């Protein structure tokens, strides 16, 4: 239960980090909050030869709004997402989601960039990026690369990041006046990884959806968008339509099985979440729509 021996380098600039990455390639791991990496190292599931500690890089911090984009630095910690007024105003989905991630002591260390680069299929933040149609900004020696969230997550612990790139920030389109967010997950205990979960953003007008992005997690090898959401766009929503769409959604899935839940249990939970999510989004949309 102790990590095997490794080298450690604390870097003072992104440039220095990228140099170290290109020097050591896949034998290196970037260390930010370490709340997923260090448990894996203690359990000897991974044994990198060198850790490159980017924790001091101020240029990877900060939350800012620039016209209609919310930019969040990779080193932003979960606790900062939870308490940020900018996040609460422009991406309330993230404020909701972070409450479900682990526990206070872990949220004080874990980072947004770390969670996304780790790409655990049961993690909350990757699904939020997909729901919010985020752009992930990767930094390499040739400059920046902008990657859509839908292309970024490629499988269990697998992303579009190259071994010599680091995740610098994410950019999110800010919430519009008629947009509503919803987050819910099922877990055995609060703070555990989810058995199934959903993160969603929708635009609601005249009691229907003009946009609907529902990203599900813990039900595939990566977060996935519900294709069945298309059935609910620009039509009058009835309970029958929601029921049909949630069945169609269940049929899209082939969830993995583990000690936590069987495949059919995950499919069932995801269908329940689908229905609850649609109903909650509509109710919230009506609430805000009625006031405006």
């Amino acid at each position, binding site marked *: 239960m102790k990590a095997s021996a490794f080298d450690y*380098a604390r870097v003072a600039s992104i440039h220095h980090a990228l140099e170290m990455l290109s020097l050591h390639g896949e034998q290196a791991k970037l260390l930010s909050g370490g*709340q997923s990496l*260090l448990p894996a190292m203690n359990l000897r599931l991974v044994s990198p030869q060198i850790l490159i500690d980017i924790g001091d890089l101020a240029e990877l911090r900060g939350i800012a709004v620039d016209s209609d984009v919310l930019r969040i630095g990779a080193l932003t910690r979960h606790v900062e997402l939870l308490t940020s007024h900018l996040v609460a105003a422009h991406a309330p989905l993230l404020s909701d989601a972070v409450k479900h991630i682990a526990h206070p002591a872990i949220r004080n260390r874990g980072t947004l960039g770390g969670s996304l680069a780790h790409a655990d299929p049961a993690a909350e933040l990757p699904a939020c990026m997909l729901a919010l149609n985020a752009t992930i900004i990767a930094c390499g020696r040739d400059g920046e690369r902008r990657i859509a969230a839908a292309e970024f997550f490629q499988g269990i612990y697998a992303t579009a990041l190259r071994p010599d790139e680091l995740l610098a920030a994410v950019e999110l389109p800010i919430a519009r006046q008629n947009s509503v967010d919803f987050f819910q997950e099922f877990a055995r205990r609060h703070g555990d990884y989810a058995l199934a979960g959903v993160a969603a953003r929708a635009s609601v007008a005249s009691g229907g959806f003009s946009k609907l992005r529902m990203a599900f997690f813990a039900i595939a090898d990566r977060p996935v968008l519900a294709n069945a959401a298309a059935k609910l766009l620009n039509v009058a929503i009835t309970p029958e339509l929601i029921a049909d769409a949630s069945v169609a959604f269940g049929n899209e899935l082939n969830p993995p099985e583990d000690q936590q839940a069987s495949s059919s249990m995950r499919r069932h939970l995801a269908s329940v979440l689908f229905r609850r999510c649609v109903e909650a989004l509509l109710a919230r949309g009506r609430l805000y729509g009625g006031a405006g």
Partner: protein
Amino acid sequence: MTAPMPISLEVNGERVDLHVLPRVNLADFLREHLHLTGTHVGCEHGVCGACTVRVNGEIVRACLMLAVQVHGKTVQTIEGLSDSGEVADLQSAFRERNALQCGYCTPGMLMAAEDLLKQQNEPSRELIREHLSGNYCRCTGYQAIVDAIEATAHSRRGRPR
């Protein structure tokens, strides 16, 4: 480079300059290098909370931080909070309410509870449970722990500051 690296930090108000291997986590560093054995090691992968300490004023898992990451930072352990008297009333409440049996989880419980009480002067039982959800106790069933924290919050509200 797997050789020991120099680190400087402050632990419970005292400056510490030592050399440490990169693989040594903060919990082991505190226990084995500084002989501060109040920080307990349970699961070593961030689940049980027995190793909870403060770094720069915020609670963290000492098993999920490397000692080399704490270079230049301030660490407070249960020894520090106990010696300064910061948690004296909380400790008394734990004793009075039988909020510990074997005591293994207690240092981590006290660190997490004090963290909550610093942020909230009137936490509900639900909030107490939520804040302690990352700290496991295998003896008490938690009821007495929640009682002790609730009682401490109550008595602190009546205390002139």
